[in-house]
């Protein structure tokens, strides 16, 4: 019975959220539709980081780099070269993924805090590039005027929703596949996995590349939603924000990071409208989560035995 309730609960929340997301738009003002679009894009990004952080146990602190590089690719191609929509979308995802493939070679052999430091450094390199490669990125001014592909917020909202559903389905499939279970095994005890004959380096590498690919999808969506890309989207603050979305929601769950993304985007936008001290509130929430639910909100009920 308890098992049944657990499963019912596990599925009911995502399903209910989905129903609300599908049926909601006609009742909402364009501002809220915009916010929901943002939430879904950041949910994809947070879930992609969760593959690394939650499932493989690799704390990446440069994840906004993929997001930013994909967004910049769309921005550069669509404004300077007037490339078509599909060219931009496909190249954005491909370049983000290739970046993951290249960076993965540098980071896949290290773990824990060393992984964190190297990804942080790579993220800063990307940030520096966006800030100083002025002829391409526009430097500090960023790139604005990315053409709108759809009129009005509602069509774009549904495209984002479709992308969001597709990405979450793919990521769920991925983490519940044998490959995904191997990743969990690496997280729990890498040497044991090695002795079982698993090529852990390759698994970590592929997990990094796949995670980067999903982050690039989010970056492409963001470029089209926002119409503007600047260095602030791939700096350390941006990376740590995604990190916080995952840790707040609950790493290793996919649903948790998506909810975490929703919570943080809402907090940032809604609270800041009422008070200038909103950063304090956000900070207080982080501290309370760390103290009260160190495994993230979605893992609250889980017994302390299962490590995340």
């Amino acid at each position, binding site marked *: 019975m308890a098992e049944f309730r657990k499963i019912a609960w596990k599925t009911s929340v995502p399903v209910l959220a989905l129903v609300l997301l599908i049926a*909601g738009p006609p009742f909402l003002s364009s501002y809220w539709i915009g916010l929901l679009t943002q939430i879904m894009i950041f949910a994809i990004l947070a879930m992609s980081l969760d593959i690394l952080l939650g499932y493989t146990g690799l704390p990446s602190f440069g994840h906004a780099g993929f997001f930013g590089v994909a967004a910049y690719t769309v921005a550069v191609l669509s404004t300077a070269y007037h490339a078509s929509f599909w060219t931009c979308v496909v190249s954005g995802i491909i370049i983000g993924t290739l970046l993951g493939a290249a960076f993965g070679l540098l980071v896949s052999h290290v773990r824990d805090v060393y992984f964190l430091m190297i990804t942080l450094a790579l993220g800063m390199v990307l940030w520096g590039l966006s800030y100083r490669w002025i002829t391409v990125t*526009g430097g500090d001014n960023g790139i*604005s005027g990315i053409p709108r592909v759809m009129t009005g917020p509602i069509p774009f909202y549904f495209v984002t929703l479709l992308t969001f559903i597709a990405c979450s389905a793919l990521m769920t499939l991925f983490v519940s596949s044998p490959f995904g279970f191997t990743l969990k095994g690496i997280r729990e005890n890498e040497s044991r996995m090695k002795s079982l004959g698993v090529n852990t380096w390759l698994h970590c590498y592929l997990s990094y590349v796949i995670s980067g690919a999903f982050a690039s999808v989010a970056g492409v969506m963001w470029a089209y939603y926002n*119409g*503007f890309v600047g260095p602030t989207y791939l700096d350390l603050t941006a990376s740590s924000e995604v990190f916080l979305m995952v840790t707040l929601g609950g790493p290793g769950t996919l649903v948790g990071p998506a909810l975490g993304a929703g919570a943080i985007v809402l907090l940032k936008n809604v609270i800041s409208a009422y008070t*200038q001290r909103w950063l304090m509130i956000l900070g207080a929430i982080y501290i309370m989560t760390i103290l009260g639910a160190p495994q993230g*909100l979605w893992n609250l009920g889980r017994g302390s035995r299962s490590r995340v």
Partner: protein
Amino acid sequence: MKRVHTGFILLLAVSVAAAGSLVAGQAVARRPAEGPIKVGFIAPLSGPYVQNGRDILNGFLLYLEEIGYRAGGLRQAQAAPSLSRGGRQIQVIVEDDEAIPAVGLTKARKLVERDKVHLMAGALLASTGYALAPYIDSMHIPMVYPVVSADDLTQRRRSKWIVRTGWSSSQPNHAFGEYAAHTLKLKKVATIALDYAFGWESVGGFQRTFEAEGGKVTQKIWCPVSVHDFAPYLAQISRDVDAVYALFLGRAALQFMRQYQEYGLKERVLLIGSGTTTDEHVLPFMGDEALGVITALHYSAALDTPANRKFVAAYRARYKKVPSYYSESMYTGAQWFVSAIEAVGGHVEDSAALLDALRSVKLLDVPRGPVELDEYGSPIENVYIRKVERVNGELQNTVIETFPKVSQFWKYNPADYLKQPLYSRRSVP
């Protein structure tokens, strides 16, 4: 069980948020046609540019207080002068952009789509200005940029719905370059400036006219925006220059001035620069190291005109400090859009008419002097050459020369001017 509990709370939170937004959406739909005039305001009110942002907001609020937060009733008031000033109430919604373009864009969305503002004003950094422009254009909401000075906003990347009432970066520097060559008789100048668009455009403008008049910029030194110590940059300045042109603002300006003196350069080499280097947002915090510095800008708090004396007195009385160019920018900016609101009789719902009115405003008697827009939408206004002096124990930017009615194109033909690339880090005239 505990898990179900927390999940339930989460669910509840989601549904409450959804319901709240529903109510908010309906409330907006029922808005009457003649409510208050809503003005959205964006400036950095936290982060590294908070001082500048506050000054802009202060100037804005000072003007609105003077007119009692009402506009659009001038015609009725003229018909029946006995009545108090009529018109619609002006409601101001202030948002903080933290000096981050991405945040500015988010806040602009909130102001336009949630608060349904009729017009917008504000923005400080060029990067924020560029980030907002396409969005503002797509939403058809007129926006007044009182400060953002990025040249291309009114040159190669013009935006229909943005009305710049401030200045363009190179505008005062074109005049200053000529002044430096003719009046100051400088031959060789080194420039040291912050490494971003505002710096490049200002230095580029100065270099162009200075070199056209026979001078030579022999050295260009760029400091990162986050610079903390000027020692490595000051050491690079060559010994044979006649003057150093400096462009800084905020904390960097204070520190640069101090170190310029500490390194013994002040006694040897004349210091000139962009108006922001000695602007009144930093000048009260400087000491003797600032004396004698010559800069160019379209405003000085020491400007001796009746309109400016009145503004400075009112500002000092209200905020207990001297107004900076940032304060004046939005004081005039507010006056600008209030004139436009009067011109359309308060019917701000017709945003196209409001935009036309904004573009045809001409203010002859604002603190900085007469202002009007050229056909590209950038102000034609006076440029003042100012020298820092101590008067009654207080430092001020004494105006020593006025270039009247300077356009963003200086004396060049606009069409030819626009064929040249934008001033950049490496630009050579």
